[in-house]
């Protein structure tokens, strides 16, 4: 492979990895705090993309109606923020209806609930919006730059930068705020910490809200890069992000981010060096091997009854 091809694939991997990382964070946080695999997370990502589509369409319609001039990037920022907020409520609702009644149930029951909520979200979308594929509006004009034979678009740069900023913001929130501290405490021991006055229900809701918000941002960035929306877009992508969450290490925010990018790199470079027919076979065999040697993931710690984030 030529140098240009190599560099081009690094750019490709960074974009793909951003999505995996953002979605993996949601899985990882919920698992860390509530010891729960939220299998509906991939579908929350899908819901986030659709909410983003509606917010963007609504803003565009409003702009057209009132002849206010808004630059594309501003509409995009507003769309991301509004969709993150709205999708947080979806996440909170899912937690309230689907998971809270099962908080003390066997973990397998809660995981199955997640799968069912996922199916309800997919088919609910199908019934409300029909099976049609929707196209996400191109909010910002795509410009392609050629740097040393490598094609980079402004969208790709923006996607990676926004994803990194969001991860940084999450890290600061969890490490620096009182709520973040409460989350970490709950992750440490969710049986005892509530006895110290930490409201478990609110922490659970907050965890779901943060995870869903990140999934929504991933959904919108994803729709900008791949502007065809369908009710099933979250399934396979959600699974892969789940792999990244496990690879990163149970409940580790840094781990989920690193593993998300790593998964992007592995997928792209396997397809680049081997016949692309074998891409998933080889890529996921590599991950299997990594897990055999590091069963707790890259940044995970060995399981003890107390430590979970």
């Amino acid at each position: 492979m030529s140098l240009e091809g190599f560099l081009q694939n690094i750019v490709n991997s960074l974009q793909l990895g951003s999505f995996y990382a953002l979605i993996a964070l949601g899985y990882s946080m919920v698992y860390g705090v509530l010891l729960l695999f939220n299998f509906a997370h991939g579908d929350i990502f899908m819901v986030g993309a659709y909410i983003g589509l509606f917010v963007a369409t609504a803003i565009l319609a409003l702009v057209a109606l009132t002849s206010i001039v808004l630059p594309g990037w501003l509409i995009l920022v507003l769309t991301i923020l509004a969709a993150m907020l709205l999708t947080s409520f979806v996440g909170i609702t899912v937690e309230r209806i689907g998971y809270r009644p099962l908080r003390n149930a066997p973990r397998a029951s809660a995981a199955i609930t997640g799968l069912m909520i996922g199916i309800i979200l997919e088919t609910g979308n199908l019934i409300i919006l029909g099976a049609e594929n929707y196209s996400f509006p191109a909010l910002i004009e795509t410009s392609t730059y050629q740097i040393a034979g490598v094609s980079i678009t402004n969208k790709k740069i923006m996607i990676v930068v926004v994803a990194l900023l969001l991860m940084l913001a999450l890290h600061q929130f969890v490490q620096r705020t009182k709520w973040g501290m409460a989350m970490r405490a709950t992750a440490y021991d969710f049986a005892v910490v509530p006895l110290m006055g930490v409201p478990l229900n609110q922490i659970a809701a907050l965890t779901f809200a943060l995870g869903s918000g990140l999934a929504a941002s991933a959904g919108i960035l994803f729709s900008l890069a791949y502007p065809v929306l369908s009710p099933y877009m979250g399934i396979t992508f959600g699974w892969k992000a789940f792999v990244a969450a496990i690879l990163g290490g149970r409940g580790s925010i840094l781990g989920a981010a690193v593993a998300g990018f790593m998964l992007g790199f592995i997928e792209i470079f396997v397809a680049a060096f081997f016949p692309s027919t074998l891409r998933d076979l080889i890529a996921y065999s590599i991950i299997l091997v990594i897990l055999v040697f590091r069963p707790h993931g890259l940044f995970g710690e060995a399981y003890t009854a107390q430590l979970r984030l």
Partner: protein
Amino acid sequence: MNKRTLLIITGLFLIGAFIVSGCAQAAQPAIVIGVNAPLTGDIPKVGEGSKFSAEMWLEDINAAGGLDVGGTKYPVEIVIEDNESKAESATKANTKLITQDEVLVIVGPQSSKQAVPAGGVANDNETPMVSPWSTNPNTTLDRPWVFRTPFLDPFQGPVIANFVTDEFGFSKAAVLYDVASDYPKGLAEFFKGAWEDVHGADSVVAYESFTTKDADFSAQLTKIRESGAEFIFTPQYYNEVALIAQQAHELGWDAPIVGSDSWGSAELMNLCGDDCKGQFFSTHYAAAGATGATKEFIDRYNEKHGYVPDDVGALTWDTMLIIQKAIQDCGTITGDIATDRACVRDALAQIKDFDGITGKMTFTEEGDPIKCAVIVQISDAGEFEFYQQVCP
């Protein structure tokens, strides 16, 4: 929400669903035709096109007071089953149509991924099936009960290879296809074979694949860009074409991207936009500039549904008329479903020079028609314009 309320709500919901679905079932009519189509899933627009055409045909039959078979008018009912664009759901839908709804003949499934396995079910149960869109040879191969109305991929592959050779004078091809779906995989192979026949071994310089539901093709496209290929052939469905064309252009690709009949959906331009303008693909009919019965059909469909029908709509229309002719050729409806199915199968096999809106059709031994393909170019207005016709 306490558990009892939840239970009551779920219970009421289920009872309601039963009542609604109960109402939808009418008394058993004399002639039932099953349609097995992807109304949801990856390619809903394809299912919609078939459904609309079948319903238009039914309107005509109902307006005439039923289907005239040997002097008696029989009421006709169409049962439409959704196969969710999945192979396993398509076989399930066929089984239901055959055993539960006791249909006389099945129309569909559309894409080969569903039509190949579903054709097996129809053949094993001795029920005639006509696929309006499947171009993979395996759909009808060694299946006397299965027919189709489009041309086949062993024909389409060389048509595209020859067209690109003559039109552009290229000698290095790249192929990008879905390895998990029968139609793209089959057509990619036929194209590769045909291209190498003309340009010699190793003239397909990149032969890249992905799997259904992938959205990122950047690694494959980077490889294609590196390979020195002069164009990309991608026999994919409209939703994937939109992503492939856009990502190719973002990677600095500016050579042609050539497609096959799966491109020809009204939805393509909504999703793909400028990235698809000027590209060529092979298909069954060109809507822009059609005349005669074809134009009549297009206008009627357009008026009713607000868009120009896809090739699958036109092919379904032909399919409905062919099965109508086969049923009428039978002469009588005995009421014994096995006898009637056998009679319709034999009548289908006998059909000669049927003048459809997508061309003249005579079924071969395998139940495949021999017909022409057209190459269309996507105009700047987003219309599929006739470019040339290629006949076998």
